[in-house]
């Protein structure tokens, strides 16, 4: 019984939250990695573009709710996603046309593109706030929980509870689906391979009859889809607040890098590594230990939560020291 309690406490406070958070990071990192791999720059506007896509999704959700459409226990926002993706795609395609294309044609240093993305970040940042304001917005509807603490306790008779939010479950499921689809696309389809070819050697891709602009457009559309999905799922699970979307950039980049920039599978692994290290290494084992029969006065905490992201960065640096391009052999410009 106590063993079960310990296990449930661990699942409830460490495993489930970290898995959902990891999936959110993974989706974000996937977008970063895709843009890095194919367009060859670190897109600092990523977080704010996620916010932008989410803002559009939220407004679409409101519109759907206003006309009375819902998905029952599943959040309406999922239905609004395509609209958000379309809006975000238009936005990034426009940005590419106005901003990035110029530097691509000139074959500028990647750093110039990075700086341009910082400029885009500032603008997106302002636009999103002007569009939807700075306040925190909750837009999840439907059932909040798949399993909630009280009913779990009653059902199991354990002293520890277990909660699984609908959004957490959806996040993980969607992440798995998206990753699978992306893999299939990149490795099996002609367009996907063309994207990889372009990322490898632009001139030669041209010589093989690949239209670079089309590859770039496709990349941005997929990236926009990834960004909007990631942003919306994150917003559903936590809450939407434009300011937070800049802050999430840091763990997302960490995830993409640990996995190896440019490697989709690395992005996934990275997301989970960062999430689990943040949650697990700062977790005080007091309670779990208590259930297992070791009573302790101290918290049995390796590291205080103030330094939680330090943990993921230390892991990042250690990984990079032994594998300089990340776990799954990313690229470097």
């Amino acid at each position, binding site marked *: 019984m106590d063993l079960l309690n310990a296990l449930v406490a661990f699942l409830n406070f460490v495993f489930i939250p970290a898995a959902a958070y990891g999936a959110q990071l993974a989706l974000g990192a996937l977008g970063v990695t895709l843009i890095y791999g194919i367009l060859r720059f670190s897109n600092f506007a990523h977080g704010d573009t996620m916010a932008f896509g989410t803002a559009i999704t939220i407004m679409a959700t409101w519109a759907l709710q206003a006309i009375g459409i819902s998905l029952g226990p599943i959040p309406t926002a999922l239905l609004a996603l395509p609209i958000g993706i379309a809006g975000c795609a238009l936005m990034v395609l426009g940005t590419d046309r106005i901003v990035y294309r110029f530097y691509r044609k000139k074959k500028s240093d990647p750093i110039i593109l990075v700086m341009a993305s910082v400029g885009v970040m500032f603008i997106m940042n302002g636009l999103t706030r002007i569009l939807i304001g700075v306040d925190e917005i909750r837009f999840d509807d439907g059932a909040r929980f798949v399993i909630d603490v009280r009913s779990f306790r009653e059902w199991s008779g354990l002293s520890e509870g277990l909660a699984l939010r609908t959004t957490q479950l959806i996040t993980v499921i969607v992440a798995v689906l998206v990753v699978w689809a992306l893999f299939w696309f990149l490795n099996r389809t002609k367009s996907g391979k063309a994207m990889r070819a372009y990322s490898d050697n632009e001139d030669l891709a041209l010589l093989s009859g690949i239209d670079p602009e089309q590859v770039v457009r496709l990349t941005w559309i997929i990236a926009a889809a990834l960004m909007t999905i990631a942003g919306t799922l994150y917003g559903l699970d936590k809450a939407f607040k434009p*300011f937070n979307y800049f802050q999430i950039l840091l763990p997302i980049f960490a995830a993409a890098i640990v996995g190896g920039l440019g490697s989709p599978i690395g992005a996934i692994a990275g997301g989970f590594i960062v999430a689990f290290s943040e949650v697990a290494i700062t977790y005080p084992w*007091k309670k779990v230990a208590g259930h297992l029969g070791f009573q302790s006065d101290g918290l049995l*905490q390796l590291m205080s939560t*103030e330094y939680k992201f330090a943990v993921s960065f230390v892991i990042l640096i250690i990984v990079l020291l032994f594998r300089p391009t990340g776990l799954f052999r990313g690229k470097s410009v």
Partner: protein
Amino acid sequence: EEVKLGMHLGFTGPLESMAPDIAAGGEAAAKEVSDSGKFMDGSTVVTSRSDTTCTDAAASVAAAERQVADGVKAMVGGQCSGETIAVLEKVGIPNGVMMISPSATSPALSTIEDNGLFFRTAPSDARQGEVMAQLAKDQGIESVAITYTNNDYGKGLADSFQAAFEKLGGQVTTSAAHDDGKADYSAEVAALASAGGDALAVVGYVDQGGSGITRGALDTGAFDKFIFPDGMIGDALVERFGTEIDGSIGINPAAEGDGRAKFEELAAAAGFDPSAPYSAEAYDAAALILLSMQAAKSADPAAAKEKVMEVANAPGEPVLPGELAKGLELLAAGTDIDYVGASSVELVEPGESAGSFRETTITDGKLEVVGFH
């Protein structure tokens, strides 16, 4: 004459979502005074906003310099303590501009050499911590876990609460910081849950990490009773959590009387959220500035600063929100007033709110006033 009043607040940056309501509070008071036509022989009040970014002292100082160059005589602000200190030392004092902050709570502002130019309508952390501790104890809470927003407000209040609570014989299982605007609070929630306690004191902001932590604690079943100080109290809190936080305690600066009610009416008419943290304090800050100018019969801060304490404190005729015209008239006639305002202003030396607090419990998803301390 046209008197210029600056709203020097963090419109961008970590507390950007709080600033508009704070500014709206201050502007409401300014408008009320200006529209009354009774301010210093028909002078008008013009307000202008400037951005402190809350965190970047240099940017805040530069923005304040701009306000001064535009002829601002006094400012409602700054919003965060660090930036407020920098502005006071580099702009306020050298130029003799009066500043009343609605929200800077750092103890350093009590001891700073301010040339008599700085006041605050925010309560001091020390006092609030004691009240919180007493209330928690009275409710039979024996042990608490504390989470605080990692800035001088959060840290200061958490420390004073912890000290007071332990002095009363309570046990603090852990006191850990959370950073606002972070992506995820699972780790913090897990740590707090593991430490345990009868209740969780959330020393943060309602539209920031404070809510994120509360959400996580509720969802995972880690805590069901909370102690919420002023940064968390507002309609946003009950809107967000409703009946889930029934039985929790809330504390915020306010006093018995109809000041608060009047302020709420007035805010509804002006179209901002009166329950937003520090917007009542901002209304009072602006009102105090203007009333003291009226008392001094001069917009010159050097003269007005001498009158602030007089206007704010008894004895005198009490003045509530919405009654600023009356206050102006009385002062013009040379009668002393006691500005009560929206947050029951009572200033103690060296020019900060004495702090009377309102205790609320959350019942059926509503804030219910229990008493005043």
